[in-house]
């Protein structure tokens, strides 16, 4: 599988610093795309090109070239990373174009992408050995180095805790409490709130689990599907030893109602909070009752590891 760290931060140069990998923004001239392209630039992400069909030749912020196609943008910049801001109904064609043009990490921001379209994009990504993050994700971030997404910068600080989250705002909220408690983040990956994810919780876990620098992990789940159960089983199977704590949103949500996220729905017992919490308990992963409790539980777990 493609290496997410290499795609996000490149290789170290002779001075031991990571290069800034070039990133393409698809839909850079839209309201949402331009707002976040600017925010990513401010954070220090190397936005190398934008793509908007029909606007090729123009410049974003007076300096970043805009191309009509992803292929042209890739040819000009050598970029392997793209973030997509197109409306949901155009996601399938935008993502297909990107993967065909050689993009290896595609961050899919749009919410409300039809599941069938996502499934088709995932099939293509498998063939191309590419990573899809999302759709309906806040994005991916290595605090202090690179932000490819729509998350605000303020909750995050560099550190050694991994945060994986289905929800965007809970990712910000919980990272903020971690930061305040002195736990910076080594990487944060938004899984997204859709029923089908390009990078599943277990995939995200596998992408980061072998990074020797990580000290612990926070998994922010929610009702719907069985991604949490599967990652809990996996953690037991591989006997992963580093401290993990979790939070699950939607414990008190009614069954068979979609709670905002397309994926946040309990059908029968499939997707229930009880099922997820009991699996995490089996895997010796404490589940916080409130977002604010996460940092406390993590501190406790880290303390035990030291003993």
């Amino acid at each position, binding site marked *: 599988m493609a290496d997410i760290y290499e795609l996000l931060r490149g290789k170290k140069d002779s001075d031991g610093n990571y290069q800034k990998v070039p990133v393409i923004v698809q839909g850079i001239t839209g309201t*949402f795309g331009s*707002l*976040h392209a600017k*925010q990513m630039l401010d954070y220090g992400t190397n936005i190398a090109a934008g793509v908007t069909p029909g606007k090729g030749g123009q410049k974003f912020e007076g300096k970043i070239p805009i191309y009509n196609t992803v292929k042209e943008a890739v040819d000009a910049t050598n970029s392997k990373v793209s973030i997509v801001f197109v409306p*949901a*109904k155009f996601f399938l064609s935008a993502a297909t174009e990107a993967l065909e043009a050689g993009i290896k990490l595609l961050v899919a921001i749009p919410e409300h992408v*039809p*599941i*069938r379209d996502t*499934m*088709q994009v995932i099939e293509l990504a498998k063939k191309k050995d590419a990573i899809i993050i999302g759709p309906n994700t806040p994005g991916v971030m290595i605090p202090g180095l690179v932000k490819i997404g*729509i*998350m*605000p910068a*303020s*909750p995050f600080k560099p550190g050694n805790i991994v945060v994986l*989250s289905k*929800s*965007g*705002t*809970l*990712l*910000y*909220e919980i990272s903020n409490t971690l930061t305040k408690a002195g736990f910076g983040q080594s990487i944060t990956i938004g899984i997204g*709130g859709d*029923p*089908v994810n390009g990078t*599943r919780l*277990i995939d995200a876990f596998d992408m980061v689990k072998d990074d020797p620098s990580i000290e612990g992990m926070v998994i*922010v789940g*929610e*009702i*719907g*599907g*069985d*991604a949490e159960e*599967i990652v809990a089983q996996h953690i037991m199977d591989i006997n992963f030893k580093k401290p993990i704590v979790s939070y699950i*949103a*939607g*414990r*008190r*949500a*009614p*069954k*068979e*109602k*979609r*709670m*905002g*996220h*397309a*994926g*946040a729905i309990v*059908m*029968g*017992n499939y997707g229930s909070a009880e099922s997820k919490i009991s699996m995490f308990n089996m895997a010796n992963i404490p589940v916080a*009752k*409130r*977002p*604010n409790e996460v940092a406390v539980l993590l501190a406790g777990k880290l303390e035990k590891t030291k003993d």
Partner: protein
Amino acid sequence: MRLLEYQAKELFAQYGIKIPKGISSKNIEQARNDAKQLGYPFVIKVQVPVGGRGKAGGIQKCHNDDEFEIKYPQLLDMSIKGEKTRAILLEKMAEYEKELYLSLFLNRSKRCYTIIASSEGGVEIESVKSQVIREVGLGDVDSQTAEEVAKQIGLQGKTIPDFVDMLQRLAKITVEKEVELAEINPVALLKDGSLLALDGKVVTDDNANFRHPEMDKYQEKTELEERAEKSGFTLVELDGNIAVVGNGAGLVMSTLDMLADNGGKPACFLDVGGGATTESVYEALTLVSKMKKVKAILVNLYGGIVKTTTVAAAFIKAYDDKLIDLPVYSRLMGSESEKSKEMLKDTRTKMFDSVEDAINGVVMEVNKRG
């Protein structure tokens, strides 16, 4: 969206899956005519978008007019798990040998469709031990796969081609209508070896609605839920009296959990979304103001890209316009939260630094008012 049984069966019939003769109605006047047309005996079945109606008494047999006149109004007035009756289905009873189970289901973790079939039907599939499970990619099922499944659940003779036919038609629905779940539970195995869909459950992918205008007629959203959707946010109406408003589905769910943990009763789940503006929050407050049961509003916002002042401005406008006259307990976190607090200090909005404090406050307020 989740189709009601009679809607799912309409879809089944349209795709050539055999269903019992039945007629749906929403009032007894019409139903009396339907009863004549159908002829006794028949079953009357409550149409609600949740499971468990059999246990709740939502399915009754009728043998004559007297039974019908008593039972129909009872079922029409029924509520199951907080869901009111949407319609009543009158349906001929079928004599059958055996109940089977069949569904096509989006397996989210494997990211493919899965056939689940069993020789035991009519009960929740989770409780059935002998299941046959087959992964089928994007939902297309070829006849060979269907035949193998038929044999694996022990079907024989002419039932096998009947099952293959039913499964392939169900697969066609799954693919063409973009469904997350298409379930027939039970499938009746009739005396002559043929199969009949006795119940139907279909859940479609809401995000694909734009490709299926023909399905709009099945939309069962409330007026408020529809208005919310048009404004780009999500509203789920609930039974309680405290409106829960926030940005981001996860954060609103989490707020709802904490409120319920503390004895509060959520009146709604309202996610104003990531792109909240003063106008959209004002519209959200308009919707809340239309819910008569609401006694207080709990707001939990994590301002990131959306500034909390954007939201505060909407509250001030709502008070000025006399749109809301409710106490608001809020926690505004993140960008420009200090400025928001200043803006709202002379209003009925109480500001808290932590959501836990805001929740304690709102629960006490509502309890005090009784």
